């Protein structure tokens, strides 16, 4: 079981990101379950959504308290909530920011996790460029795919095509590809151990 918690604010497509992640994993032949944090969501309010991915059917209905991956779509949430609570020792953190994890005050979580498991990508800027709107969710999934190897870009593209009309889907796929490439580029500059390849074989 691989569990992902996505944090962001209403309007950033947090719930859609969890849905797409589940659809992507499903396309890969895995079992998946996605659900929102069941709040009365509104624009700008903190929102969380969850996604479980597994080789076997998923029965549990409890919220994810011990994630293997945390995606933070809005860095202003970092010091407001315990976003990394329960994160596994081998877990992954991806934050939407053009700054480095250190400069965002993420040193504590950087120390806890293996090298390369905490990253930032400028997902809002990527989305602005590729989609024309500052919705970072899909770029974040592209980056998360590159970082964890838990889903492939090809399957993510299929899920995006299923979810959105063609023109919008194509722009979103470009955003996912750009983010994927950005993370791959960052990984390439680092030792092999940081690639998270244990998940891909």
């Amino acid at each position, binding site marked *: *079981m*691989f569990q992902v918690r996505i944090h962001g604010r209403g309007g950033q497509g947090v719930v859609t990101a*969890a*849905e797409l992640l*589940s*659809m992507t994993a*499903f*396309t*890969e*032949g*895995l*079992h*998946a*379950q*996605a*659900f*929102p944090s*069941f709040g*009365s969501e509104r624009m700008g309010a903190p929102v969380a959504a969850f996604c479980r*991915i*597994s*080789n076997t*059917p*998923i*029965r*549990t*209905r*409890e*919220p994810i*308290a*011990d994630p*293997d991956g945390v995606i933070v779509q809005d860095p202003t949430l970092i010091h407001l909530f315990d976003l990394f609570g329960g994160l*596994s020792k*081998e877990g992954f953190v991806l934050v939407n920011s053009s700054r480095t994890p250190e400069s965002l005050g993420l040193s504590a979580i950087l120390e806890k996790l293996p090298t390369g498991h905490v990253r930032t990508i400028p997902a809002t800027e990527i989305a602005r460029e590729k989609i024309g709107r500052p919705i970072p969710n899909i770029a974040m999934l592209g980056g998360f795919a590159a970082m964890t190897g*838990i889903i*492939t870009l*090809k*399957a993510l593209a*299929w899920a995006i095509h299923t979810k959105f009309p063609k023109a919008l889907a194509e722009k979103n796929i470009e955003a996912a590809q750009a983010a994927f490439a950005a993370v791959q580029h960052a990984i390439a500059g680092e030792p092999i151990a940081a690639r998270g390849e244990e*998940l*891909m*074989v």
Partner: protein
Amino acid sequence: MKTPIQLTPPKGPVELTLPKARQIEGSRAIAEAVGLCRPQVICAYPITPQTHIVEELSAMVKTGELMDCEFINVESEFAALSVAIGASAAGARAYTATSSQGLLYMAEAVYNASGMQLPIVMTLGNRAIGAPINIWNDHSDAMALRDAGWVLLFAETNQEAIDLHLQAFRLAEELSTPVMVCVDGFILTHAYEEVELPTPEAVDRWLPKFQPRQVLDPAEPITMGALVGPESFSEVRYLAHRKQLRALERIPELSAEFNATFGRNSGGILRTYKTEGAETIVLAMGSINGTIEDAIDELRRNGHAIGAVILTTFRPFPYASVAAALKNASQAIVVEKSLTAGMGGPLAADVTLALANTSTPVYSVIAGLGGRPIPQASLESIFERARDRELPETTFLDLHWDAVNQAITKELSWTPHT
């Protein structure tokens, strides 16, 4: 209990065509299942967490995906079910959906639908009832109208929610009685998970064209729901009771036929999970059973003889089936998302009555009220206490006692103004 990451990549190339199963939202799945049953009139008023279901259906009617169906926007839930009653009386297959306060607002019509024996199917996206206002999931709404003469079925998963709707229309129309399909709000309605929808042709074979018992027809006028005096009212009520008992026989038959047709074991009165040799048996309704099954697997690994009963049919209440499913257990634990203030758990009360002629004690666990998460660890700790014979008669799962005690202290310190 943390499981290590052990995902394997898919075997062979990723299949990028539409597979038989789909990863979709529960509400969408329910809407499509209802659409496959070809309702002729859908009337609804939106309320969280039911909204997505009726939004999807209205879109399906508008785009023509659902043909020969009228979607009627109404001004309230009272109107929604009243329109369904009118449509059903005029011979149309009628459907509506609601949640929480919405069900209460249509309460009078709920009794009218069953009193008039109209085969309406309604989805209830289970949600708590205020005050205090709360939009999250529990079973208070279903419990409030559990004795209104409808068949009440509870879904464990979104796949079962689909299957129960297909069975509900069959049952409703065969017996001419309304059926409510209860689906946990948010937990199921808003969850994306794998489901398989049957083909329209298969559903058409499963569910024949609606043939109403009685039809309002200007050419041959009749009165439905007329005044019935003391000379006949008892007989009308007795016949309604008898029909519900008949439903108890028909529900397992339909479930078996469904399994033979669609290859899935869905619906029925109840299912058992690892009850063979179980000293403790946990009984619950709805989506919490998934977490309970995981907890049971974990405890079984540690040698704890525990199993579960997943109760699907809540009304009519299957006393004999519940007694039979629990007969070899030395204790029963009822986990339920409802509380009758001053009485306790209503489901636990029914199970206690089912076991009245046995010495098996029934322990009541009230959990998940107003959307409080029910963690597997909390359930395991309750079940372990039961094994050690330390469970009190009633447990309020994960209750914040400090907050409760603070409120009690405050109330006790109140004095009237002089």
